[in-house]
Each structure stands twice: as C-alpha cells, then as structure tokens.
C-alpha cells in the first residue's frame, strides 16, 4: 500500500502546479495544523477508481474561491462574478489538481479512472469522513491570505 508521505507530497505538488500555472497564486503548506476555514465555504470533490480508490477534495472560503475564479478568468476580485462561475471554477481546479496528482502517482499506483467533479457550498464544512489511516490532509495558505485544505480519502482498490 502506498504511504501517506508519498500521497501528501503528490497532493501538495499537484496543487502548487495548478495554482502556479493557471491561477497565478502561491501556495505554502500551513504551519498551523489546526487552522479553520471561517464562514461560507466551498468544497470541490472528485472520486477515483483503480488500484487505489477514493475521493480528493478541496475546501476553501467563499472569498478565496471568488479570488481563484477571478484569477482564472482574468478578472479583478472586485468584478461581478456569478456564483455559477465561482462553482464552475472550483470544479475545474478540483479536476486539474486530481489530474496532476494522478500523473504523479501513475508510476506507483498505475492508472486511475476519475469522475466529474462536484462542488457544494456551506458553512462549517468539516473534515469528518474517513479513517485517519486512510486519509491525507494538507492545510495550506494561499498568497498568505487565505486558508484552504486539500484532502485525499483512499483505500486499496480492486484494480
């Protein structure tokens, strides 16, 4: 079974690649493991199947999501951006981070089949799913301004 350090590294590096290339924002791993996302938040998630199966998710606050969408679309954060566009942008980020993680894991776990991403909005979205032995959580700071979390829930798949 793949180890958690390998998954954690793939998740962080995959996220950095996507944010650096397409969103033009810097990501650093947080030094505060207990950091919380306050207020309205968005959770983008995507499932995968193969020799490893599970779910990857991104959770960030509403203002962070709006800035991500604005940067992706070449708009200013103060510009009017619809909720649909923000949700769509977070879905695409989820999809691209999963693609990037998948490419990094390809030599270790083989090919993974990935679903279409879904995005939900809510308050106090907590990471309460999954057993700690089968879960990787990477808490990050985006541009030293926003807190966000990348998650992988996984188990050995049937191939």
């Amino acid at each position: 079974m793949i180890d958690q350090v390998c998954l954690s590294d793939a998740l962080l590096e995959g996220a950095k690649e996507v944010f650096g290339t397409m969103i033009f924002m810097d990501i650093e791993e947080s030094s505060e493991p207990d950091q919380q996302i306050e207020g309205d938040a968005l959770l983008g998630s995507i499932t995968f199947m193969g020799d490893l199966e599970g779910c990857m998710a991104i959770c960030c606050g509403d203002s962070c999501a709006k800035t991500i969408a604005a940067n992706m679309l070449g708009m200013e954060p103060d510009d009017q951006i619809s909720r649909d566009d923000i949700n769509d942008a977070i879905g695409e980020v989820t999809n691209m981070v999963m693609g990037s993680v998948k490419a990094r894991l390809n030599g270790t776990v083989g090919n993974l089949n990935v679903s279409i991403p879904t995005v939900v909005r809510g308050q106090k979205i907590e990471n309460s799913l999954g057993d700690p032995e089968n879960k990787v959580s990477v808490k990050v700071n985006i541009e030293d301004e926003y807190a966000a979390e990348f998650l992988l829930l996984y188990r050995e798949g049937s191939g």
Partner: protein
Amino acid sequence: MAKSLMIVDDSATMRKIIMRTVRMSGLKFERTEEAGNGAEALQKLGGSPVDIILCDVNMPEMMGTELVKKVRELDSCANTKIVMVSTESSKELIDGVMADGANGFINKPFTPEKFQEKLSPLID
C-alpha cells in the same frame, strides 16, 4: 488566410480560460465558436466548419473521443485539426484518440506557451 477555432468543453469557465490562454499565446483567430459537448459541436460544425478544434475528453452527451471519430467522418471537416485538452493523460487514451484522428494533445494545467507550441505547426 483567416483562421477559425472552436472550443468544446462542458465547463463554460474552462472555455473562457482556454479562450484567454489562446489570446495570451499570441495566436490570432478571425472566428471563434464554443460548444458545451460533442453533440452541440457536431451540429455547429455541420453548418460551418472550422480550422482548429480544441476539445475536452470527458463531457456529457458526447465524449471528446467520440467527437473525434464523428468529425473524421465529415467531408466538410477533412482539413480540420483537432487538439484534445484534458487532465486525462494516460498513454492508452492519447494513443487511442490520436489513432482515431486527433492531431495533438494538451494537458491541463496548461500555459500560453504550450498552446503556441502545439497549435502553431497546425495553422501555418
């Protein structure tokens, strides 16, 4: 000669991002079209073929892989170049879609330089 481009992706946001990245790459297209899936793309191509199609792989109604096969059956699109744009990057998928008639593959995430590199040889 004026060139035309169609972007096929089920995400309206991604279509806008691709359009913006194409512009940033310095490539110029006289006419641009958009479609949300393969079926819509085929309908639009029937009336007005384009020079280049940038196409996602995973889409509802008709997948990008299916669209490639359908476009290659159209006499009016005999000169149309198809470049897939996807997070899916397995060798099996790329080999399959290239064998079916695609002309290139760009991985997401992408840069303007990548579009320049992959599209320039197809439109010169």
